[in-house]
């Protein structure tokens, strides 16, 4: 089988530009500003994680992206047009946390409906198989477990040839095996040149799956880069050592490239954006650290550090 770039009928000059573009987008609910001056672009073929704690504005951002809600100000474009145009052309598939399922029908009936509503559908059996729900195809939708419901939602999101797949916390309710199987399927989709955007607060997922991570907090973009870059930006290394005697804490706090400092008795724990310079300066002070450890931060710590740094500046 030869791989060809699918031809799109959604209009000219839509394949060259960004898949998604937000320009200074704002959305408030009453007093709460859910999305606050957000600007970003997603490019064809990227697998992007939208990472942030609960209430960071991830779901709101996806709602705006998909055209489920209008932005208060700013501009949201999908494939150079409106979200509705992209959805009507079958270029976007989405799996929402808040997306319910039709009841009183079987899994197969529902997935078949999803396929028939798609302008460029896959065969129903193929969609069922890929979502791992062939065995429960005859079961009624209202009799499913949470994890099974998620897989049906995934089937609906991948019922046709989409160019962009949007997933809001897709592995919620799945056990470890199901989660791994899910991401394996998602990687296949990405390998076929699809753009994948997923919101998550499972930090290991962003680290393991995405080739680009957007960190969102309070509706603002904190960081945009590869998982490695995010870690570097937040203070990439943890440095720990023991110090005998009395060393003035001010001296230690003045060490170069520090992003965090902790001292418990003789133990000193630092975070540094340039561990080499920090450790070098410790020796240059004439100190003799014992049990010196330098280790990389997980994305989780990087993320917490970024969030705290941002809050400190507000």
């Amino acid at each position, binding site marked *: 089988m030869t791989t060809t770039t699918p031809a799109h009928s959604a209009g000219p000059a839509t394949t060259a530009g960004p898949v998604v573009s937000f320009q200074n987008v704002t959305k408030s609910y009453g007093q709460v500003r859910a999305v606050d001056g957000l600007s970003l672009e997603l490019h064809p073929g990227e697998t992007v994680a939208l990472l942030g704690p609960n209430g960071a504005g991830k779901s709101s951002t996806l709602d705006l992206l*998909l055209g*489920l*809600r209008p932005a208060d100000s700013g501009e949201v474009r999908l494939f150079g047009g409106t979200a509705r145009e992209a*959805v*009507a*052309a*079958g270029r*976007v*598939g*989405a799996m*929402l946390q*808040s*997306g*319910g*399922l*039709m*009841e*009183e*029908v079987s899994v197969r*009936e*529902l997935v*078949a*409906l*999803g396929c*028939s*509503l*798609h*302008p460029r559908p896959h065969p129903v059996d193929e969609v069922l198989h890929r979502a791992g729900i062939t065995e429960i195809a005859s079961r009624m939708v209202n009799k499913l477990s949470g994890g099974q419901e998620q897989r049906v*939602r995934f089937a*609906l999101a991948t019922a046709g040839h989409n160019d962009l797949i949007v997933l809001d916390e897709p592995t919620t309710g799945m056990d470890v095996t199901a989660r791994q199987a899910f991401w394996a399927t998602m990687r296949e989709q990405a390998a076929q040149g699809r753009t994948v955007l997923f919101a998550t607060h499972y930090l290991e997922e962003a680290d393991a799956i995405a080739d680009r991570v957007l960190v969102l907090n309070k509706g603002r973009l904190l960081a945009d880069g590869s998982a490695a870059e995010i870690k570097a930006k937040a203070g990439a290394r943890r440095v720990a050592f023991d110090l005998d005697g009395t060393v003035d804490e001010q001296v230690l706090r003045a060490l170069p490239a520090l992003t965090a400092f902790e001292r418990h008795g003789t133990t000193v724990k630092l975070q540094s954006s340039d561990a080499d310079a920090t450790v070098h300066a410790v020796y240059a002070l004439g100190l003799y650290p014992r049990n010196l450890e330098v280790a990389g931060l997980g994305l989780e710590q990087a993320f917490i550090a970024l969030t705290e740094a941002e809050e400190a500046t507000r």
Partner: protein
Amino acid sequence: MNAGTYQLIKLEVIRALRNKKYLFFTVMYPAALFLMLGGTLSGTTKVMGTELTMPAFYMVAMASFGALTAVLVGNSERIAKEREKGWVRQLRLTALPGRGYVLAKTASAGVLSLPAILVVFGVAAAAKGVRFEVWQWFALTLAIWAGSLVFAALGVAIGYCASGDNVRPITMLLYFGLSILGGLWMPTAAFPQWLRNICEWLPTHAYAGLGQAIELGGAPHVKDVAILAGYFVLFTGAAAWLYRKDSLKA
């Protein structure tokens, strides 16, 4: 109509038929109401100002009222519930046009209102000896059924205005108000003139008028048909617009 819209209509009809409780209520309620309200009426008493017997009048009124109940209450409540569960959000992420959704909901309601009308007719003919010409039976069935689609569209629109908590009171208020003022329960001849002037423009009045014209041996009035057509366009337009605008968060 595209294949997707057709599939949605098919599935909506299948779902409605699978829900036994909903089905039973919808199909049996109008006939039960006819027997309760019209059960003690004498077959020879004439309706004020007409040659029509009371049971015949009540049969047409209850068939109309019952069909209206089935589609209005059924649609608005089921849609409000579906919105709360987020199914409509998911559906809005498909290429389905807004009118496709309204069409599917209206059509599935219409499939249930037809047997409801026929059961009332059957009960009235068997239990109360109501008799009409053959063409009248067919014309009554068609007119009452087609008219019920106007209220199915209204049900879709209400399902979009109201949330799951307040959909029932809102529907009930509209439903009783429209039914009584439109003359579906009793002839509006008993109303004062000023009220009758207002009632004339209600969709329920035009709806009742369809059946009454046929049961008196004539064709439905053009004015009634025009009023109903106008309301149908209004309700479906509003429902499709509300479907697109809906931003209820689950």
